[in-house]
């Protein structure tokens, strides 16, 4: 099965299973930039990002024998889940998943059109930076629900919290991010 770039992913996976380092590096080159962006959304510290990516790729290379690639998208999705898992494990190990609800974080509603416009036009690097400013717990649930499309029931089981806590954390994270986006937009203006 090949993609538009002419890469046979089945052969690539087959070579990786055999321990071909060239094939491993090729897979690394194809996916590392996207995986770095995924990891950076969860883990702020660059050294931690490097550790998570290293661990993720090692696990991917050792576990790829059970993976059947369909196309590039399936490989990326598979690898992304490994990176998300490793990111959450690091946050759990470092006890950064603070999910207590802070009543002071509650903000009034923000006008929708303004927020949507700001989110559509602002630089994506700036958007990433704003997400990284969120508290670890808020940022994690926002990423899992809004970006990874994981329902609150699964988020609750993954993080060991209740579904209600997951939903309320996401609500507050969204509020916080909206406030940061508008603040940033006002600064630019």
């Amino acid at each position, binding site marked *: 099965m090949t993609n538009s770039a002419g890469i046979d992913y089945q052969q690539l996976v087959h070579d990786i299973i055999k*321990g071909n*380092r060239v094939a*491993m*590096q090729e897979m*690394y080159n194809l996916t*590392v*930039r*996207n*995986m*770095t*962006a995924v990891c*950076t*959304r969860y883990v702020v510290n*660059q050294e931690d*990002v*490097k550790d998570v*990516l*290293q661990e993720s*790729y*090692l*696990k991917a*290379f*050792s*576990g790829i*024998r*059970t*993976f059947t690639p369909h196309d590039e*998208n*399936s490989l990326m*999705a*598979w690898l992304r*889940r*490994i990176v998300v*898992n490793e990111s959450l*494990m690091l946050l*759990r190990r470092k006890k950064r998943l603070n999910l207590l609800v802070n009543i002071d974080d509650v903000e009034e*509603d923000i006008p*929708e059109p303004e*927020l*949507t416009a700001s*989110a559509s036009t602002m630089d*994506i690097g700036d*958007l*990433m930076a704003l*997400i990284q400013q969120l508290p670890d717990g808020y940022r994690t649930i926002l990423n899992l629900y*809004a*970006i*990874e*499309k*994981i*329902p*609150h*029931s*699964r988020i609750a*089981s*993954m*993080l060991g919290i209740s579904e209600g806590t997951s939903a309320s954390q996401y609500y507050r994270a*969204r*509020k916080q991010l*909206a406030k940061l986006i508008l603040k940033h937009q006002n600064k630019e203006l």
Partner: protein
Amino acid sequence: MNHDFIDILHDRLSQHEMAEPSGLWQEIDNSLGRSLNEKKSLVASRRNLIRAIAGAAATALMAVVMWTALSDESNTPSQGTSTVSHANEQFAQAHTSPNPITQDDSSPHEKGSVKSPSHKPQASVTAPQYQSQSHSHISNLSGTVSQVEEDMIAQNQEIEHSPSTREEPVSTRPQGVTRAETAQLTTDSLTEPVDTTMIIINEPAPPLQQLWAVTEPTRNKQPKLEFTLSYNGNLASAGSSGDNVFSDSSPVSVPENSSPDPEEPHNQETAIVKEKEQMVPVRVGLEAWYTINEKWRVGSGLVYTRMTRKMTTTYTGPDKSTWSKKTETASYLGIPLEVSRILWNRRRWALYASAGAMIEFNLKSESRQETQTELYNKKDFRDRRPQFSAIARLGLQYNVADRVGLFLEPGASYYFHNGADDNLYMKHPFRFDISLGIKLNLGK
């Protein structure tokens, strides 16, 4: 705030790329090389450990076999043989001892009539008051007794060469049973009773007494040393530490309903989750059993156990269903110590009960998790603490040959908690199982 804001975030960030950390691939490459070397060294170290254990077990086994063989050589069979020889010597001495009757020079008739070759028994004590009676009667008697004794000697020689009786100690029969009866018959022709008991008493115990042991009811003799090779299969298990089941130390669960297509909407409604567990333990063992006495035996050896536990979780939502599968495998090497008592033993069959304990060491424990989107997540949860268990069995053995027997042992085991959370034994600490195998008898 509405759904559009979230969609914008998702659209912009899901495909976003960033420059990777510098030197990342070099570190990954180095780790790959290290992990390969670690795997090789780990395999080598485990191989060495297994070899060391096998060597120690073989050495212990050889020591026990040699000790058993040497102790058997200096025990009963040789004593029995020497006892038989000693009895024969006594018998021969009695035959060669001077006969007061025949040495009576006052009776030329007696001299001529009594035949007393050296191997024939002669009266070793003074004949009673009847000695003054006709010596011819006595000579006839001694001649008749000699004939009986010749038969006895012939039988003695036959018994002495018989292997079935060589091991049996020569027990003392009531003396002169056969001889007294024979003597009594031969004296019927005499006019006066002749006290032949004195003749009989001083005779050595004839080896014919060994026939007594031969005619005893047949019982299976317990061999000194036995070896068993067994295979054990699990019948049932009870007691679970929880069917919700993935070990606590496992990594964060994989999002099951995540789709490779980021555009596909998700559904947050409650889903049905079903879990199914399957656990298959397999055990093989090699044990040596030493017989203490007719009833009791003690045994030990090596037992290898491999357990595989599979958990399948099915997630059924309104729009789609997904699954995840977790496979946990664990290998143990155990050293049992058991005591066995024979309850019933006849011919080729034996019924016995055994009880004991076992200590096991976890060689390897690994969990592997897969989802419908084929995510692979592997974790090592080897438990370095020893695992203790109590064993009780009831066994039935059938000896197909002198040295080979087949056995069937239903039994139960209970595994004591050793403090480990990931221990597969703790999922079902109480187990019923059945063993079947072969017993080899190396003793005499």
